[in-house]
């Protein structure tokens, strides 16, 4: 350790332990939150099954990529899971459309209070899905990433820049950030420019009027579920590549995802993304131990002895809840005005 003030190394440290992890975690949350937002805007209920659906999609990817690895169908440098996503996507779409046909469609037809009934039904679906995933893959944690672990490792970075503090860029982080940008760009293009996307927005804004102008509600709902399948599978896979797959962990993701959606403004896609990054950065900034960071920045005499951690890591999930509560108290509409009062 040097005893002088070292800003560049401090920044490198923050990039490695805070910025990159938070960016990739935020992207994963954002994709999940967008799926919740889509279901909310079109089907008008908060989908409690989102976390377990992500586990289901990831399960499909794990099974398919396992088969591919056994056959030797891999790509150099990247995890086989990426190759497995398109096939898993088909499975996930079928599953979600089947659930819609068997469970949710009935309540749309009888015009039930969709919010309350939808939540209850989605809790039922959550259990069925979670049970299936645990039955097939077990409840314990596992890793399924293969291929190169790093785009560049700490050692390579140090050799390249000559800095004392290294930065590692994991393949999973690279994939997460790239895929998230592509998916979000696709979603906004789809919603703004295509005919189906416009129909979806119209349906979301004013269902009665949309129906009058000849939009086919069944088609809108089906497209929504296909988009949800896309976002859910990819979000789940990326999270699993980054942090490993454990069904309970996925189930608990529900909390930060809901927090993101509400913080951003429920029903607003941009809000969901902003909320996701807010939640991710707060979680990591508040649970990070700043000891080494301060050692780089402060003169020797002021070096801290404790870890300088604001909140223990075990309370990670509590942070998203606290953010949620603060937003509900100060600005219940969320950052980007969402829908606060029940429409129906």
């Amino acid at each position, binding site marked *: 350790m040097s005893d002088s003030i070292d800003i560049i190394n401090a920044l490198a440290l923050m990039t490695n332990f805070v910025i990159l992890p938070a960016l990739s975690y935020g992207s994963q949350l954002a994709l999940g939150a967008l799926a919740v937002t889509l279901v909310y805007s079109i089907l008008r209920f908060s989908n409690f099954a989102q976390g377990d659906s992500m586990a289901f999609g990831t399960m499909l990817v794990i099974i398919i990529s396992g088969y591919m690895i056994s056959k030797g169908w891999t790509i150099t440098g990247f995890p086989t899971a990426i190759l497995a996503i398109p096939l898993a996507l088909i499975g996930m779409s079928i599953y979600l459309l089947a659930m819609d046909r068997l469970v949710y469609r009935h309540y749309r037809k009888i015009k039930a209070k969709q919010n*309350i009934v939808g939540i209850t039904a989605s809790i039922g679906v959550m259990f069925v899905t979670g049970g299936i995933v645990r039955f097939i893959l077990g409840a314990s944690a596992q890793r399924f990433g293969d291929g190169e672990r790093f785009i560049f490792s700490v050692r390579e970075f140090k050799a390249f820049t000559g800095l004392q503090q290294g930065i590692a860029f994991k393949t999973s982080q690279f994939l997460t950030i790239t895929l998230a940008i592509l998916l979000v760009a696709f979603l906004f293009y789809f919603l703004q420019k295509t005919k189906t996307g416009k129909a979806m927005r119209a349906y979301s804004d004013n269902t009665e009027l949309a129906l009058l102008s000849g939009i086919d509600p069944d088609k809108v709902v089906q497209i929504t579920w296909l988009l949800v399948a896309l976002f859910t599978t990819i979000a789940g896979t990326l999270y699993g590549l980054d942090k490993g797959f454990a069904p309970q962990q996925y189930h608990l993701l529900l909390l930060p995802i809901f927090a993101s959606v509400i913080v951003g403004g429920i029903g607003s896609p941009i809000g969901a993304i902003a909320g996701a990054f807010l939640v991710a950065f707060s979680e990591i900034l508040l649970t990070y131990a700043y000891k080494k960071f301060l050692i780089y920045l402060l003169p020797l005499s002021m070096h801290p002895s404790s870890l300088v951690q604001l909140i223990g890591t075990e*309370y990670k999930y509590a942070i998203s809840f606290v953010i949620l509560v603060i937003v509900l108290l100060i600005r219940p509409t969320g950052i980007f005005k969402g829908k606060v009062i029940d429409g129906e």
Partner: protein
Amino acid sequence: MNNMNTFFQANKAVVYFTIMALVLLFVGLNQSWALALGIINMSLISAIMALGVNIQWGYAGLMNVGIMGFAALGGVSVVLIAQQPVTEAVDAGGIKMLIALIMGAATVTSGILLNRKGVNKLLIAAIVVTGYLFTRYYFSEAADLIEKVDPAITGYLGGFGLPIAFSWIVGGVIAAGAAWWVGKITLGLRTDYLAIATLGISEIILYVIKNEDWFVRGLKNVYGLPRPVPYEVDMQQSEWFQNAIAWFHKSELQLLSQSEQIEKLTDYVREAAVVFVKLCYSGLFIAILVSLIVLSNLALNSPWGRKVRAIRDNEVAASAMGKDIKRQHLQIFVLGSAIVGVAGALLVTYDGIFIPTAYLPLRFTFLIWVMVILGGSGNNMGSVLGAFIIWFIWIQSGPMGLWFVEMLSNNMTEGSSSLEFIEDRVHYLRLVFMGTILLLIMRFSPSGLLPEKNKQL
């Protein structure tokens, strides 16, 4: 045939409860009485919890997805009230912990008060952050001191050493406090905010209980909680109990020789002691359940109950009539959660140990929900019936699943890997099964087995 049908419609509840009783009788005769009574006792506790949820969901349409959090608060109150205080730990860090908690409370209240006065937001933030840092410093020091006191046995502050019956009331009060706080924030906003917030609060309550060892020992669990009923060992040694069992089995024992008689009698006494203790619990739980049902039925049929249902069925109209909806919802949410808290306290009392990891928020919250919806939301007797049916299925579906797998295994080779795989995971299918039950009832019989009687106002 038509007569049969009208009879069934009129006495639905009686018929269902009789069937349930017969099934439990069958379990008692064929498996064991201890098992049957175990199911009954857990069903009774579940019924109390379901009653609380029914008050929230059935009376007022409020979704509580965090039942286990409130139940865990009830469990905590048992430890805090009934355990003996650990004087060494209190001496070591009690004062410091008290200071830390007071500082924390002062920080929060000053933050809220200053915010109300409209002081500069940055200034408030600065005050709150400083307060937090000081609190955290004192707090971690105090927690360390307490946890160092004989960590294998205590390492926590203990409780007040009061009679355990107090904890049932206190459990209700603590749960009500938490519910008031959650309700105050989320009620009056969108309906699903309450569901999401309760999910969050229950997770956090459990995280705190699991991680704060100084409080209720965290993952180390609390063993040997006092009991409101006699211990099995004491019963086995008490003379009148032995005599009673001897008299009960008189005819059978007379046929045996002296030494065989004694041996047989000890066996009988041991079994009977277990059953007797369970029966004591059953009596206690039934008394509490019945009084709660009577009270809530009275409430439901009073002007207050009509107002509550009017709000549930048509919020806009009720609001136009001048009813304060938010206030009413808050009242009901607190009331229902208090009952769940009482049930949580009873659960820990019955188990005799407090195990934070046993509160699976996902699984048991959901079971209670299925109970309420299967029984018929809005009908208290329905919740009780639902509790019995669902708990019975939950307990018996494990053995039944294994039995099914064994049937299959007759056709499979011994020790085949796929068979072991299924035996290992078969209990997860219970989740799928329960989820399917919920979805089927919602779809095909939304009013449940015993529909709400006075649905029409």
